[in-house]
């Protein structure tokens, strides 16, 4: 369903322009508000809808297969770490859903690897990645190898 923008709600802030993965939310030069310049390249990913601070962007199902009279609204809240959805059917029924989007304060638990202890020479020459082998099984085990698994690679027809 391509997006569209309500004239009276949009103030032309450009958050949708900034986030759209398909580069199709642009500011109209006359009205100085956002609109979808290329609906047939819209994936209905809702990135712009979620980013809009004024709830000005909505979606209307693709004209080639979706009848009118429905709506899917969303409210994403980084502070509370939740996303809320409201689906309205053509016949008026409604469904509501609420899901978490994160379990931690935003961005606080992602390491800055420039400040991590530098890898040893031995580790550089191994097949290990950052935080390995520990994070593979959260124990003291080694990285898997063909040898340890009693396997080899062989050319030919095997299923």
């Amino acid at each position, binding site marked *: 369903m391509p997006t569209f923008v309500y004239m009276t709600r949009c103030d032309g802030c450009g958050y949708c322009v900034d986030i759209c993965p398909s580069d199709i939310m642009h500011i109209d030069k006359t009205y100085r508000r956002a609109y979808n310049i290329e609906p047939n390249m819209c994936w209905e990913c809702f990135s712009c809808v979620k980013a809009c601070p004024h709830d000005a962007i909505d979606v209307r199902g*693709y004209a080639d297969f979706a009848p009118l009279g429905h709506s899917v609204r969303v409210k994403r809240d980084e502070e509370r770490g939740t996303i809320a959805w409201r689906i309205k059917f053509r016949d008026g029924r409604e469904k509501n859903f609420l899901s978490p989007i994160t379990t931690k304060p935003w961005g606080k638990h992602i390491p800055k*690897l420039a400040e991590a202890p530098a890898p040893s020479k031995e580790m550089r020459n191994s097949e290990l990645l*950052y935080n390995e082998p520990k994070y593979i099984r959260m124990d003291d085990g080694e990285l898997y190898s063909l040898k340890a698994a009693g396997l080899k690679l062989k050319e030919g027809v095997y299923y």
Partner: protein
Amino acid sequence: MAYETIVEDNIDVLVCGAGLGGTGAAFEARYWGQDKKIIIAEKANIDRSGAVAQGLYAINCYMGTRWGENNPEDHVRYARIDLMGMVREDLLFDMARHVDSAVHQFEEWGLPLMRDPKTGGYQREGRWQIMIHGESYKPIVAEAAKKSADKVFNRICVTHLLMDESKENRVAGAVGFNVRTGNYHVFKSKAVIVAAGGASMIFKPRSVGEGAGRVWYAPWSSGSAYGLLINAGAKMTQMENRIVLARFKDGYGPVGAYFLHLKTRTQNCNGEEYESKWWPGLQEMVGKEYLDPELSHATHRPIPTCLRNHAFINEVNAGRGPIHMITMEAFQDPHLEEVGWENFLGMTVGQAVLWAATDVDPKNENPELTTSEPYVMGSHATGCGAWCSGPEDISPPEYFWGYNRMTSVEGLFGAGDAVGGTPHAFSSGSFTEGRLAAKAACKYIDDGKAQGIRVSDKQIEDLKTKIYKPMEHYKIYRNEVVAGSVNPNYINPRQGLDRLQKLMDEYCGGVTVSYMTNEKLLNIGLKKMKILEEDLEKLAAEDFHELLRAWELRHRVLTSESVFQHTLFRKETRWPGYYYRGDVMKLDDENWHVLTVSRRDPDTGEYTMEKAPCYHLVGNDE
């Protein structure tokens, strides 16, 4: 030209495209190169770019060795049978042995992984999938990449790779333009990791008009993973292995959670199970080794995705469509009903919208399924991509040339869709491949392999002229006609895309021909592709946005030509249900149990094709 040239010099690791593969690469590169200059060039905004932009409701590649669930070799065997034997098992094993460490870090970063209340482990959807609340999956991994990179250049459409002029076949960076300012950006780099996307929209989609963007893979997946690499002369593999998806009709909502977690099943229009009646005939085509329903039933070995598509397609063509997903039973359970809806809201919101628009409540009716148009990519149930080196401790000599995930071009690495022969990597596996490529790229630099790189001003200026040519062309000819898009001197990117889609559909096995092609059709198609390429020299772009579409189209066309060449080369029908070679309808292990490898000469455009050996994991005593 009025476009400003902005040069970013002395880069060590340049990441082109920051979806799951690119974010993994940038994140990890900082650990191995703490004093290195790491730069990301991203076509959109890294917070919502790539195939995971709208989120995911599952991580489809998680071994669970921590919980005693699977070992890496189990996943290799699964991917092998699903792809009818045609995989790079060294790369797959390598990805599988590292992937859990990525997932465990995601959880630590705040990605909500669901837990199984009974076992305390992660909530399994199927043997390989774990369920997540992944609406913010992409912003979370983007945060990790941003913390590692020196700078993220958003809205840069990378069009070409720069090549070293002191040593042949060595990469030297990349160029592109800013889709907002129009500025020309030059990135001079010692190593480049291409982590751009696979290709949607190269085959005519089932949707028409406004809905043409309602494709299974993101419309912004423009095959740049392949366009950039092919243009640099990198070898490609398994490009014939396009994928067709059985999905909810029109919205292309995913079916994985429905089959695996909700335990739904499919039926034809008469309410009958239809798959099994197609198995005997199909078994004659592919052999019992690949399709053995009794063995599959007894051992839970999956029936390959393409073969299940084959049953679907044939049942519909026999006049017993539509195929329905039987949801009415599962949806009586309120918890499963919630899972069914949240699954769409988490990753394919459009399907929820469509059901709302058409008053479909799967509790009261069984929704229709369809088979999609084909897609070319390398991280779902297919493995198109570059021919890359594997890791030193696993790969046989034919698969190893120094650095893990390095393509056949020195210093040029791949991750995610860009790497060939590694299906079933999905989001977590792509992120992992990015990490592997990043470590190898740092080692490549530390080993002194990137010394003495030279890029002339001429190379940079020539590419600049090339990049903006569609805008110049437009300016020259637009006033020859009164108004409108019809002009005898040029086509615009949309017109070019329409032509490509029609051509791929009709000659390369798209939807309207039930995925059928043959040698004669492919040869006609290739001729038409050559003419299309000539016309692309006369592509016109009105503004920077159209210039973006112009270069996306060029990457799609390079991808498509490669698909044609590979499909022509492999003289068998290896994946019935993905596509059929009508002139050779059987699987032929005697001649074609091999990987197909191609190279397009960047100077002449000529293709050379070769067969590469297919290695499989076997026990030491075999």
